[in-house]
């Protein structure tokens, strides 16, 4: 046999009928590992078949990383691992020890949101927002590698992230705006947005 063995016809049923007390050797054992997420070490115990996405959301409570297709087909689960964008739905958490993981929660600092977050908010580059954490992480990896990407490069590098709402134009503009801010260049004001406010909100009198 050269191909992986076939799954039995109804694993779901079989699993449901299996006695609760499985034989000792078959019972999966948790692994304990230190994951470095957003600059902090977390000692965490999880089953070895869990993906990084599942461990981030379920064991570390970091629900900023979204789950979409969970098959590599949408990009919303993108995080940054050792400077590269990775799909957390197709990465085993057990393979992430010793690696530097950045999720959307790790983008902002005490000084305020990351220029990408700010630009996405200022330009309305999110509608439902479900794709946004993935776009932010993929864009962060891109800008850390290439501070002045062309529109074509941005389009190519973000080609693994789907957005079902915006039509992408605003997202590309936001990445360009954030890149300019990160290079220290002035950016045009956005009507209704207060550039001095850390969140961009315009102060209103009551």
């Amino acid at each position: 046999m050269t191909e992986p063995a076939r799954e039995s016809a109804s694993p779901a049923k079989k699993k449901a009928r299996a006695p609760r007390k499985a034989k000792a050797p078959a019972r999966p054992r948790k692994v304990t590992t230190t994951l470095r997420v957003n600059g902090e070490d977390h000692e965490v115990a999880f089953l070895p078949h869990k993906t990084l996405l599942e461990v981030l959301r379920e064991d570390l409570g970091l629900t900023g990383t979204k789950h979409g297709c969970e098959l590599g087909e949408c990009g919303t689960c993108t995080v940054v691992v050792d400077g590269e964008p990775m799909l957390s739905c197709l990465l085993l958490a057990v393979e992430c020890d010793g690696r530097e993981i950045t999720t959307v929660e790790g983008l902002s600092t005490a000084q305020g949101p990351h220029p990408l977050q700010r630009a996405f908010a200022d330009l309305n580059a999110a509608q439902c927002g479900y794709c946004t954490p993935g776009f932010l992480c993929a864009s962060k990896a891109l800008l850390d590698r290439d501070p002045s990407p062309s529109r074509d490069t941005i389009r190519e590098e973000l080609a693994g992230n789907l957005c079902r709402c915006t039509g992408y134009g605003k997202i590309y503009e936001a990445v360009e705006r954030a890149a300019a801010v990160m290079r220290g260049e002035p950016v045009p004001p956005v009507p209704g947005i207060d550039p001095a406010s850390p969140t961009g909100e315009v102060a209103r009198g009551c």
Partner: protein
Amino acid sequence: MMRLPVFRYLAPKSSAEAVRMLSTEGPTAAVVAGGTDLYPNMKRRQVSVRTLVSLRRLAALRGAQAGPDGAWRIGAGTSLMALERDRRLAAERPALHAAVKSISTPVLRTMGTIGGNVLLDTRCNYYDQNFEWRRAVNHCLKCTGDTCWTAPGSDRCWAVNSSDSVPVLIAMGAVARLEGPAGVREVPVESLYRDDGIAWLTKAKDELLTELVLPPPDGWRSHYGKLRRRGTFDFPVLGVATALRLDGDRVAEARIVLNGVGSAPLRAKEAEAFVVGKRVDAETAKQAGELAFKPAKPLDNTDFENAWRKKMVKVYVRDGLLAAARA
């Protein structure tokens, strides 16, 4: 959530240890490199893996080097993104570089490897579905059922070889280095495949693909053309690699390899023989396209209408020959 099934996780430190583990664990053990093909298949319960043997610690499998004669040795564990960023590969093997760059998406290429691409599972609209979908149609031949839903009258599986790198590797005469319990053997990449959607590889389950060797270019020039619906994400609905060795302005040797139209990559041998001795002009390329059209038999199990996909063989072979001659 689409969760992975429970498995035992092993991370060997050498290829010999990996082979030993695969042999001891038997047919329900699987190698994982980038996991971008295997994990979706496991999540959809298409394959059952009890033990996962990860190549993560095998640094020796990563990296690509060109020799002074222009031959290349590419470790099976090299990521597609590393190959894409390799400027020398882009300059010396533009067709392979283009094929690699056309695979999936940038983030998937960062994770996926060339070895995984060469050994990619065959694909079919009736197979690449979640468990509930497949149960609703009563499963297919490739996965526990007894009918091929693509061709219910047939007694075989017609799932399609959809790897982008494979046609170019075959057109370049690449060799695969396999390490198994009985030792190391080198086989042409072309002989890795069988025209059978279920048993599509000739490689034994406990053999590890360690390296791909590209012979020196020796005057060969090549091109890769890919047909798909979107400019990203999608597998090739048709992939055509064309390679020519010219003698003056005439073709001395030709290789034309089609993928996405059968369970194994297909050599268009009649078209290859036809162009030998000729100049590659528009008319020769067109006639070669007609000849390659005949053996291509796409079925209705990927994207697009199959009659149109077959028609596109003419166009892609014609354009590919002209592009290879110019390369």
